[in-house]
């Protein structure tokens, strides 16, 4: 089961073909390199559109959330591969 984190993180992303693709992010003084964007979906919190991306660094699965109103990235949750 994924562990909720909900912390702001620094993210490096590429905007291409009308899509945003995170390349890396820093959480807890550690840099994670995104190997795969596994899923995308959108929600809204009030007026703020939130873009959610499932990403994997090969070892763990993360959910990054991008608030398109405040332009802040959050690490929503983390799950080690195979743990579920």
């Amino acid at each position: 089961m994924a562990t909720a984190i909900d912390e702001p993180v620094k993210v490096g992303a590429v905007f291409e073909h009308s899509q945003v693709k995170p390349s890396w992010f820093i959480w807890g003084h550690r840099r994670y390199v995104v190997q795969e964007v596994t899923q995308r979906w959108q929600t809204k919190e009030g007026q703020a559109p939130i873009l959610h991306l499932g990403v994997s660094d090969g070892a763990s699965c993360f959910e990054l959330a991008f608030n398109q109103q405040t332009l802040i990235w959050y690490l929503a949750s983390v799950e080690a591969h195979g743990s579920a």
Partner: protein
Amino acid sequence: MSERVIFHVDMNAFFASVEQRCNPSLRGKPIVVCGNPKKRTVVAACSYEAKAFGITNGMSIFEAKALCPHVLLVGGNPEKYVDIAQHIFAIFGELTPQVEIFSIDEAFLDMTGTCRLLGRDPDDAARLIKQRIRSAYGLTCSIGIGPNKLIAKVASNLQKPDGLVRVRQAEVHALMTRLPIEALCGVGPKLQKHLNDLGITTCEELGRTAEALLVGKFGLLGRSLKRMGQGLDDGPVAPLAADGQAKSMGHCYTLPRDTDNEEAIFGTLLRLCERVARRLRADGYQGRTISLTIRYADFSGVTHARSIPHPTDNGLRLYEVAREIFQRYCDPLSQRVRLVGVSASQLTQHQRQASFLEEEVRRGRIDRCVDRLADRFGEFTLVRASACAPLVPKSHGFLLKATHHHRSLVLG
């Protein structure tokens, strides 16, 4: 008249597939999507790998683990599934305007006009849909093609996962000859038993049974059953916009634990009423009949309704009526409560007439304020303190919820 071309698209193990797509390490493994396993929850969806162990939707986690001890539990995320489903339905909408959303993971498409206009073989159109869904979301679906919705839905069930089955009009009779009645949408275990008791086990037998016998046993349903047995269904593919008038709005909630704590029950009831009221206001409706549902620990339950003279979209008014119903029919409690539900029906468009009653005016102002806050900051940004009982016992007024996305705005 040429044959209709109806598609039934059924996403394969939708919730579980979305989660397996999200987390590569879950792929190929038995997983179930559920609520918080530390609280009372059931299997909302299971992967095909889990189904191979006999795990089914609706099963308790305890039962699922008994069948497959190494099954992986994944917390459900309804907002994710809804958003992905909406994008998939949008893919359908690009091919035909006649899309009927049957559930979060199923839809009917009337492709008659599209195939004729584009000179496209229905099978090719179905493969295009499958390829686009797989390309966008990495998900598979089963598509059934038939001359009507009934046959299309039967066809999609014949090959899972990632199936594509077409049944032409000329093939319907042969299909119904071998099809068991429980394969028909709408024939559940109870109806199946009643039909079995009449000696009817296949669709062909159902179609050959005298209408008078079926009507005598099942009423008007008997007539429909006979037609279903013959593979007949004139029902159109009805997009939501064609009949967008809501008939009722309601919410229910299974309590974390069976309880006879009235504060907990009424706190939940108030939250549900506020939620129903917000939906009513958002869509411009007011409700005249309020229904209360209570399900007890032994799964028995009661539903009672009361109509009020003036329709309402106010959560507190819905709650007052629901409390009156509770006091009349459920008080004192005969046993612990498992589920609480409330709904508003006999809906009318909001009349927007000014009220002279001070209390109504005040409530209307509060509702508008709460709605504006919710629109800006998210649902239940402002909640009634009594709706948080028993965490906030005997409180009055409102509590402000801080979301992590807006913490700086709310507390700063």
